[in-house]
């Protein structure tokens, strides 16, 4: 995949599925994970097949991850911060949490 980066100048510690990892300050969550060799971010809501980031500009919504108290975020648009606890989004994303349906009915 991507080459692991060595001697990060300004490292940030975080975890993914309980694994401790390190990224560079200013990385997005997606860059932090890809740089650590993680590229399966979630399971698809329809068939449960694994998915990972695709576009990196906030358009494809493939990069959803669960972040501690923040909830489900787009990993390619959210900056990594010290101590972030990240986990995979399982295929049971609650649609009311996303809220798209409710509002588009207005």
């Amino acid at each position, binding site marked *: 995949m991507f080459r692991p980066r060595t001697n990060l100048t300004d490292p940030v510690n975080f975890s993914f599925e309980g694994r401790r990892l390190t990224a560079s300050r200013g990385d997005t969550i997606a860059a932090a994970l890809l740089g650590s060799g993680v590229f399966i971010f979630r399971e698809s809501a329809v*068939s449960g097949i694994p998915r990972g980031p695709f576009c990196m500009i906030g358009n494809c919504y493939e990069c959803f991850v669960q972040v501690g108290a923040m909830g489900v975020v787009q990993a390619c648009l959210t900056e990594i911060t010290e101590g972030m606890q990240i986990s995979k989004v399982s295929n049971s994303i609650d649609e009311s949490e996303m809220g798209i349906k409710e509002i588009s009915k207005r």
Partner: protein
Amino acid sequence: MTTQLPLCDVAVIGAGPAGLTAACELAEGGRDVVVLDEQAAPGGQIYKGVEKVFADRPQDIRFLGGEYAGGERLMHRFRQSGAKYRPGVSVWQITSDQEPELGLGLIENGSAQMLYPKHVILATGAMERPTPFEGWTLPGVMTVGAAQSLLKSSRLLPEDDVVLAGTGPLLYLYAAQLASFGIRPQAILDTRPSMSLRAVLLGVSALAACPKSMLKGMKWLWSVRVKMNMVRGVHSLKAQGEDHLRSVSYEVRGYRHKLSTSLLLVHDGVVPNTWLSMSAGIRHHFDSAQSCWVPDIHGAGSTSRKCISIIGDGARIGGASVAAMQGERVACEVDTYLRTQHCSTVATQSRALRRQRRLRRFLDCAFSPTADFQLPADETIVCRCEEVTAREIRQVAARGCMGPNQGKAFTRCGMGPCMGRKCALTVSQVMANAHGVPVDQIGHYRIRSPIRPITVGQFADMALVPGQDKKAS
């Protein structure tokens, strides 16, 4: 208690060359300008992370190319201009023209808010054209643009087993950048057919009009061709693997070949990102030269709603220099609008703009979209979110479904979180092809706000109507 309404003269959405130039021009002229950017730092996709690269790793600048380095001047001008910059802001709504006030629905730091500008400039740029093929949903398959963005903002470089596939200037630029970082991809699977006579003629005209850009482009292409393993005439691309990408296969002249890899980067050119402009009710049409939907534009950036202008690649793919020129030109239009409430469109086109036009005509023709991706094979997933295949789209078309909106009801195609961004173009094209009619006649998904996911909680907490700010009263 009275509340301070969030007002401004002009809100610019997007911080690439178009948005930033327009913001600078207007702010330097004394206008109160706010730039809303989804990203964390200004620059858009082309100058992504340029300030950080200059500050933290200047040694990388020369590998990323002269055009990228040029972005730093614009960032400097922008920082001095007096325009307000709000990073990390998603715009999920532009109020419709039925509503009394022009308003923008924003999400900033997880909370929803409104902003009431007198005028909006959309500079939302481009997105990569959808490239559906078998296996493109596997983790490990990404776009070239995604990989380039990771290189600029986080210095992530692919392993040598990386395979690039597709066509378009960005693909060759990225390959040339990899070469300068000392990385030689396993293969570049070029899907571009050989150049037509028309493309050659347009190329000559483009060379006369923009010799510098043309020579630079030819240099990339040349360096990629001699230094790298470039395979021409590729079609029927497939990505294989169980839980993530393991191999890529493709056909050349009737023979299938296979490569093991963990990273496949695809690209097939870019198209305007029109989700905001469509949700705002602005008129659009299908541009057959660029095979994509574009807003109807007159003058520098005027649209069918006089309080909204559109510039840059979001108006029509033109590249960074055209975007900057449009930014300058639109500023006069917007300024007149703010003074008189009337549109006065800038009619004259500068010579530089006309020259760029000739370059674009060549690029559109020489790097036309890949046929395989435009009309994918039956078993290919078209809608990544709802996992709807091309076969299902063709079936509903055969049963008499005449458009993508009706198709949604039968297949859920386009109803996932991406709201059709990765399938709209394909669905319209597949349906048009099935019915044997032009894409314009089939139409596009109806795009409605919110165009970004927003939770019910965020929505409920927001001050909706001017003067009724719940939190402040």
